[in-house]
Each structure stands twice: as structure tokens, then as C-alpha cells.
């Protein structure tokens, strides 16, 4: 009788030990799941890019992905036919709740006003930047950012 009671207690002891470890895994998994849901629910504002070439020709495009490359290469997300633009000239990407402009080591550089873009720079609506002979204007969509906060 004594031994049977203690056997039950011993089993309970083992269960408690593994409940401890199980609880850790459960919360870690919940954390992981939450993070996944958080990231997928994060609303990313789309970006509207308006390119006006010196020739007067203009192109407009709207993007919803988080990374846009601009260059002469036809594989770029936004290919532009302009001799003064490098194959992969500039990258516009969304992270840290902002759209960022980053020069990809282009030959002729990227300029905001008179300043050359040397480090990733935040873009906001109606910002303009110039690559070669083309001027780009960006319009960032408005989103309901309640989830983000």
C-alpha cells in the first residue's frame, strides 16, 4: 500500500518535471506563433513611383512588395531605359516601418536635391530623387497602422 501510493507520487513527480519543460516549450511556441502572426498582420504601405525622364517620357508604377529595384536591367522591378542609369541602380525597401532608399553602387549616383545618397535614406510621400537623367517621385500609401502600435 505504502509503495503503491509512493509509486503514484513518483509518477506525479515525473509528470511535474516534464510539465515544467513542456510549459517552457509551450510558451516558446506560443511566442513564435505570436511573432509570426504579428509579422504577417503587419500592414505594409504600398508605394507609388512616378519616373519622369529628361526626354519627357514618364512611367508610373505602384508596388506592394517590400523591395523594389530600379535599373536599366530588364529584370529589375522597375526597369528604366536611360543610358545614364546603371543596370541595378537603386533599391527602395520597406523595413523598420519606413521606406528606405539605398544606392546600389551605381556609376552616376543617386541624388536627393543636390545631395548624393551615400547611406540608406528614409523616403516619405512626395520625396523626389534623381538617377542619371530621370527624376523619380514617390507617393507612400496611407495605412491604418493601429496594429503596428
Amino acid at each position, binding site marked *: 500500500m*505504502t509503495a503503491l501510493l*509512493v509509486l503514484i507520487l*513518483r509518477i506525479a513527480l*515525473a509528470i*511535474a*518535471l516534464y510539465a*515544467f*519543460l513542456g*510549459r517552457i516549450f509551450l510558451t516558446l511556441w506560443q511566442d513564435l506563433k505570436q511573432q509570426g502572426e504579428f509579422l504577417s498582420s503587419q500592414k505594409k504601405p504600398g508605394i507609388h513611383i512616378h519616373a519622369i525622364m529628361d526626354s519627357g517620357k514618364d512611367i508610373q508604377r505602384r508596388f506592394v512588395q517590400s523591395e523594389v529595384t530600379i535599373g536599366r536591367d530588364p529584370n529589375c522591378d522597375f526597369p528604366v531605359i536611360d543610358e545614364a542609369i546603371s543596370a541595378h541602380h537603386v533599391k527602395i525597401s520597406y523595413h523598420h516601418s519606413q521606406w528606405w532608399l539605398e544606392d546600389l553602387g551605381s556609376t552616376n549616383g543617386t541624388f536627393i536635391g543636390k545631395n548624393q545618397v551615400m547611406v540608406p535614406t528614409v523616403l516619405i510621400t512626395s520625396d523626389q530623387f534623381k538617377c542619371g537623367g530621370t527624376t523619380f517621385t514617390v507617393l507612400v500609401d496611407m495605412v491604418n497602422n493601429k496594429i503596428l502600435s
Partner: protein
Amino acid sequence: MNKLIQSRLLQITAVFLFLQTLIITLSPAVRARTWDVDYRLSQWIALGLWGLFVARAHYDITRKLPDADPYLFPAAALISGWGLLTIWRLDSNFGARQALWFGVSSTVLIAGTRLVTIDFLRRYKYILLTCGTFLVALTLIFGTNPSGSGPRLWLGYSDFYLQPSEPLKLLLIVFLSAYLADKLPSRLRTIHILYPTVILSSIVILLLVVQRDLGTASIFTALYTVIIYLATGRKRILLISLFLLAFVGVVGYYFVGIVHARVNSWISPWNDPTGSSYQIIQSLIAIANGGILGRGPGLGSPGFIPVAISDFIYAAIAEETGLIGTLGLLSTIGVIITRGLRAALRAPDLFRRMLAAGITAYFGLQTILIVGGNLRLLPLTGVTLPFVSYGGSSLLTSFVALLILINISNHLDIDPAPLPKPQPYLVLGTLLFVGLFASALANGWWSVIRGDDLLTRSDNQRRIIEERYVARGLLLDSTNSIINNNKGDIGNFSRNYKYVDLAPITGYTDPIYGQAGLEASLDDYLRGLKGNPTSKLSWSNLLYGMNPEGLNVRLSIDLYLQNRTDEMMVGSSGAVVLLNAKSGEILVMSSHPTFNPNHLAELGTKLQVDPGKPLINRATLGQYPTGTTIMEPFVQALTGDSTANESFMVNVYKAFGFYQVPQIQLPTAPASSEADIDLTRVSPLQMALASATFSNHGLIPAPRIAMGVNTPSVGWVSLPALGTPIEALQAPAADEAILSYLVENQTSWQHLGQAQEDESSFTWFIGGTSPSWQATPLVIVVVLEEDNIRLAQRIGQELLIDAMNP
């Protein structure tokens, strides 16, 4: 959120430790198998103290460091509580001291939560390391050892001891992290940055080597290597360090005694199980005894392991909670390592990152080193299991390290410092997890695969405990009268030998002198290992960690005839065997002089040097010369003549089985060889079996002494004879050969003989029922180690008549 996770985990931990305390409380009742015992209560103090301090620390951590990692503290609280209860269960004095240290360590942790920053560690790195080294250096002069002997690694003041090498580990990590964090960004060549650390660390390690604290010295070397590797990201540092360690190991093996002994007992422990490998073998036996499920807290016998409270606490935990428990323990340490490395990667600056990783490496490496040592995965080094082992300095250091780790983890909102090379951190994590995994595998190997081999070793002292708690089966005679039974109550059982004069045959079972005779050969039945259903065996093992009650064994001995024999043999040296000539059942087996096994403890080794050799069972182990006369009936049976030349005698001995060892559950003398006829010696049992041919129509029966065993499932089960009957003569030839030896109205035959050897004389009497005897055929042999035909004849005749007229 963090607060909730931490409090839930601590609640589960409290339940776990509560159950453990409760089981320890009830453990005496399980051992005694009754509720009426003195319960163990004192360890509730430990649980109470644990609860108070942990609750307070939880409150302060969640309030002052709200973003701290919620897994680190519960994991450390679980294993330190587990260690505390294990130490208390092993020795409540040490348990009380450890509880006190747990209180001190928790108080430091609670006070430390008020620290906003740990930057002062970085600023005072030189002072801290110098103080630590100075304290260790002091032990060279003022060092003591709390146990009175052994390496003097402690600084003592009255009853308070500090082992300075423990805090020095943490101080070295702090120093290296701070120094490297200051110097690394300076773009000096790595070698210029490293050489001051090499010099400082070498001084510290040399100091420890001089002190003979080799375990700690190897921990320091490993920690130094890991931190330099983390800082530089060069794998060759790991390789160089490994090579150096191996080199130092080899040099140490040949020139330093203690290294030589440790490595030897690691590579080949089985060669010296009572000497240098005693500890490791006892540790492995304890782990094997734990098996998968463990014996239960308070129910194992980890007290047999030397220094179970500190160096071998892992083995003690393995015995009582089994593989299930140790896997949980290793996983919990794995949680600390994972969360520690995570805190390191998320740390806001290089100093904190290396400090957190260094502390994690310290917990992980030291765990692997001592657990591996307990499991014979690594050579044994006397380091502590962090948080678990007994030792105030170790516990306090672990808690301060934990405090630093928790503090570093409390910066999640700040962006982590950039990490140019993540690989070293991943390599460190992989190494530590491989170590833990290898320990888990080794634990499984010893407790499951090699378990039975280890438990049946003669140096497994748990058998002695079991003999005291589990009633041994009785030895009964052919009419179920008791020969040997047990005396004392449960917990104090010991063997009681009711019929003392059978001692050379039935032998004894004793915790000091081992086992002999039938007690040894029938041990499996008497201990309940054989004959019980497997389900009952495993159930009893699960419940009590012991075998079920032993089974009674019935012998063929007839105590009435045995008693008559022993009365007549008093004062003589020699042996008597009376057996059923047909079935081979031994009714009387007497060997004199005899001894009283009830007084084995007092008689002790005197018996072994007694010139009368009372321990020897002369009936089966005695080797007596036959002389010529006693062989007459045998020779006559083969030739029809009573004389034979030497070469023909070989045929006689061969035909009557004298060159064969009787198959019986008793130790027997080796048979003589045919090569030298003059050296032919026979045992009384052999002579009795050969003589049986004349009473049993030419057949030599297979001897039997253990007749049956009383099993719980089907009652008495017969134990068959071990040998087979042999036809020595054809029935008519045997019946005719004995005609000239018949006496007393032709119902029995007898023959006397004498033999001489050196200065000694021997008298033989053989006799038996005549072939025409209708009842049980019997045969008797008497050997006296003196020239006394009258006595031999009197014993033989009287016994035969008694046996023929029951």
C-alpha cells in the same frame, strides 16, 4: 507576459519539489512496508526556505527587471531546489548548511536586482581579477580543507569556508569580456591584444595547477579558450587549445601521479574496482540501479557513492529519479544554456554579449565536465554541478552569474549590438548541446543497456540492504522441517541456522563473508529471482526497488537421520553420505568437524585458518585415497577376481565414474586423472554413487540434494537432477558381484577398507541394501580420517538399519 510565464513555471517547480519532499517523507514507510514508522520530516524546512526565497526573488525580478528572460530564474530555481533536497536527503547536516547558503545566495540575487547597470564590473576589471587571484594565492599559505584532509583549496574562518577558485571563474570571465570589449575595436593586431590575457590567465591556471585543483584548472582553460574564440572568431584557437590540453594531459599522465590515476581509472576502471576506480564504479552502479524510472527520492542507496553530495550528486539523482529524472535535469540545464546564449546575442554591447556567453559557457562546460565524469564519459574531475552540488562558494557564484545573466537579458527594447561573426556563438551552442546529448546517451547506456551487468557485480552493496529488507527463502528438509530460516524484523533480517551441523553443506550467507554451499548455489531461488513470475519481479522492483520475497527450497536431507549421523560423528573428522541408490536423493550428508554459522561474525577469519578445515564440505570436496581393500567389490564385479594390476584399475575407476565430477548444486572436487593411478583420489559422494550400483542393479544414479522450490503460482515445483544415471554394470553382474559381501539375513551388504597416505590413515565403510531388498534401495559411505574400523562400522551399520526401518 514575462511575469506570467515566470510565475507559472515557478508554480510547477514548487509542485515538483513539494512532491519530492513528500516522497522523501514517506520513504521509510515504503522501506518498512508499513505505515507505522518514523517519517522523515526535516527536509520540509529546506522546501519552506526555498519557497520563501524564491517567491521573494521572483517578486523582485519581475518588478525591477520586467523585461528579463522569464526562463532563466525558474530553471535555476528548479535545479537548485532539487540539489538542496537531494543533499538534505543524503545528509541533513550538510543539507542544513546548503539551505543556509541557498538563503545567502538568494539574498544576494534579490539585492542584486536593484542594480540598474553592471558597467562597474567593466570599470573595475583589473581590481576584481587581482582580488580573486590574491584570494586563491592565499590558499597556498592559509589553505584548509573542511573535511580535514585532501587538497587545501579553502579559506576558513571558524566554521565558515570559502573556495576562492569558484568566484575566480566568474571574475576571469568578467575580466576577459571587459578587456576584450575595450581593446577589440581598437584595430590593433589580435596577437597584441591577446598576449596580456594569455599571461594573466596562465598565472591563474598555474596557480590552480600548483594547488592540484586540476578540474578547476581545466574549466579555466576551457573558459579562456571559449571567450577568446568568441572574441576573435578564429577556429584555430579551439584547435590549438585542444592540442595543448591533450599535450598537457599526456605529460600529466606520465609525470603527475593524480593525473595518471584519474586517467587510468577512466580508461580501465574494472581493473581496480576497490582502489582508484572505486568512486566511478560505485557511481555507475548507482546510475544502473536507478534504471529508467528511478528508485524514488529517499528510496535508493546513493549513500554508497563516495562524496555523493558534491562530486557525485548527478549519480545520486540518477539513482533516485532514474533516466527520466536526469533527462529532465539535463534538459533544464539545456534551457539555461539556450536562454543564456539568446541573452548574449541580444545584448546591447560587446562587453555584455561576451559576458553572457562566457557565463553560459561556464554553466554548460562545468555541467558537462562533472556529469561526463560521473558517467565515465570524461576523466573524473572534482568540480561541482552548478546550482545542484553541495558547496557554498559554488552556489553563491552560480547565483551571482545568474544575476548577471538575468540583468543582461533585461534589455530587449534596445537594439542588439551588431554581430559581425555569428558563427562562434553557434559553435559554442552546438558544442554545449552535443555535450549534454552525449551525457544523456551515456546515461542511457549505463542505466539501461549495461544496467544488469553492473547490478550483479559483487561490489554492488545494495544487495546487503536488500537482504536486510526482503525475507530470504527457507531451506527445508524432506519433511519440511526448517534447516535455515530468518531472524529479526524487516530492515534487520539476518539468516538463522537452525540445524547447525549441516553448515559445511548448506553453507551461509553473510554481508561480510559472502555466501557458501547451498545458500550460494540456490541463491537465485532463495532471493526470489528465479521461480517468481516476471510480472511479480518487475512489479516488486518498481515498487520497492527490490526482489520479491524469496522462495522456500526443499532438500532431500532427512533431518532425523542427519541428526543421528552428526551425533555419532562428534569428535571425529570425516564425512558420511547416505543416499537413495535408485533416485540419487541424498538423505544424509555430514562433514565433520563443522562450525556454527550463527556465530560467523565472531568466528570470522579464524575459520579459514582452522587446521580442522571446518568450512570444507568433505562429502563433496574431500579427496581421499581409496587404498586397495575398499576397491575389492568393484574390481571383483568387473573381473570376477578380487585382485587387479594397476593398468586394469584404471578401467575399474573409469567404469564406476570415479573420473567424473558428480553433477550437483554443491561445489565438488575436481576428478582425478587417469594419468597417475597412484594419485587417484575420490570424494565420499563419488564413492556413494559408485557403491549404489550394487544396490541398484548396476546403475549409478544422478545425485540430488535440492528437490523442489515452492513457487507462488503453481506451488511446489520439482528441481530435476543435474546429471543423468550411468549404467556401470549389467544388472545380473552387479547383483552377483555383491553376493559375497551380504550380511544380516541377506538384506544388506557391507565392506570395510583402509588407506594410508604419508602419516595419515583413513577408514572407509561402504554398505547398502541387497539387490533383493524390496523397499527403497539405500547406500551409505563413511570415511574417517583416522584408523578406526569399529567406529566406521558402527556408524555405517546403525544408520543403514535406521534408514531401512523408517
